[in-house]
């Protein structure tokens, strides 16, 4: 992860944000980052990840602390997030260490994506979220699992087992998952 790819990812995020908000993409889009907490939180994460991968883990942890204090958004520098990552609201987001997130993922707010805490946690656990998945508000994804691509996880759902691709998950904690 070089600085150039990091800046490229930030540019891709900004372009995607302008497209989703139905605004023109240009220099003003970058100026608006300053007044947009969720966009700024993602930018801080991108720099965090760059610092972590280029041998500055403690500086990355410092930025993570800043992100937590400013926006209540705690994204681990070890998490790998693809391009076009879209946060709607920067509040109560927690993305843990062993997480891989694909392209075009949206989070709303109060989301947890982590391998723990749980009782049967192993060091090799990994959460994988494939491309084009929308994750609603209050969703908790906790476990050693994979969420397939083009999925939709509805408000307040809890995911503790793997989901296939194109799934439409709306169940509460502990309820049986159903495909439709």
């Amino acid at each position, binding site marked *: 992860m070089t600085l150039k790819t990091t800046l490229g990812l930030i540019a891709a995020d900004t372009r995607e944000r302008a497209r989703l908000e139905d605004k023109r993409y240009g220099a003003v889009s970058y100026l608006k980052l300053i007044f947009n907490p969720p966009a700024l939180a993602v930018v801080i994460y991108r720099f965090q990840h760059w610092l972590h991968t280029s041998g500055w883990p403690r500086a990355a942890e410092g930025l993570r602390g800043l992100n*937590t*204090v400013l926006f*209540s958004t705690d994204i681990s520098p070890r998490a790998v997030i693809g391009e076009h990552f879209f946060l709607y609201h920067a509040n109560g987001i*927690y993305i843990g260490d062993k997480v891989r997130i694909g392209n075009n993922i949206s989070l709303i707010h*109060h989301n947890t994506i*982590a391998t723990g805490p749980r009782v049967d946690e192993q060091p090799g656990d990994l959460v994988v979220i494939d491309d084009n998945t929308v994750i609603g508000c*209050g969703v908790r994804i*906790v476990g050693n699992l994979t969420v397939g691509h083009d999925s939709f996880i509805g408000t307040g759902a809890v995911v503790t087992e793997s989901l296939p691709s194109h799934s439409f998950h709306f169940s509460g904690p*502990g309820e049986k998952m159903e495909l439709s």
Partner: protein
Amino acid sequence: MNATTLTFRRTLSLIKSDVVARIRYTGGRPGFWSGLGGLLSPAGSALAVWRFQAWLNRKRIPLLNKFISMGNLVLFAFEVEPGAEIGEGFILLNPVGIMLHGHTKIGRHCVFAHQITTTLGPRIGLDVINDYIVLGDHVVVSAGVRIIGNLTIGANTWIGPNTVVTESLPADVIVLGKQICPRAALTPC
């Protein structure tokens, strides 16, 4: 933990045990630099400041606690009343949205994620003097859990994400939503 023996030295040792337990839990090796990093991380500093607050509360020093509480709330959205009792080796993974009532007693070596509420009410039959929320040792509480009422949670219990607990739970169980099963099964049944 007995609140009557909460001296300043005891507070410092509790802070140290928290930091060491958190480093061990996240797979690091406890040392000077990792300890400093753990203490300066949001979760570590919020909890350490809270430990100091609990000591201030024990010494009955007025007013100062209110300002410190405000700082913790504004910085970390961490709102634990100083009257609560938290045992040693408390592993707080993330300080955001933790809201614990003063009548909460937490055992040793518990693990807390973020956005956890323990409160006595609002509910019918609320008794703010005698009601207590008691968590045993080694309880693992996942993100978004709400624990409401006068209840006891047994040791070694795992409470899954977004679960609402309104009744007492036995020891060694896994709770996820409306399901409850023995911990030996490991995955929710």
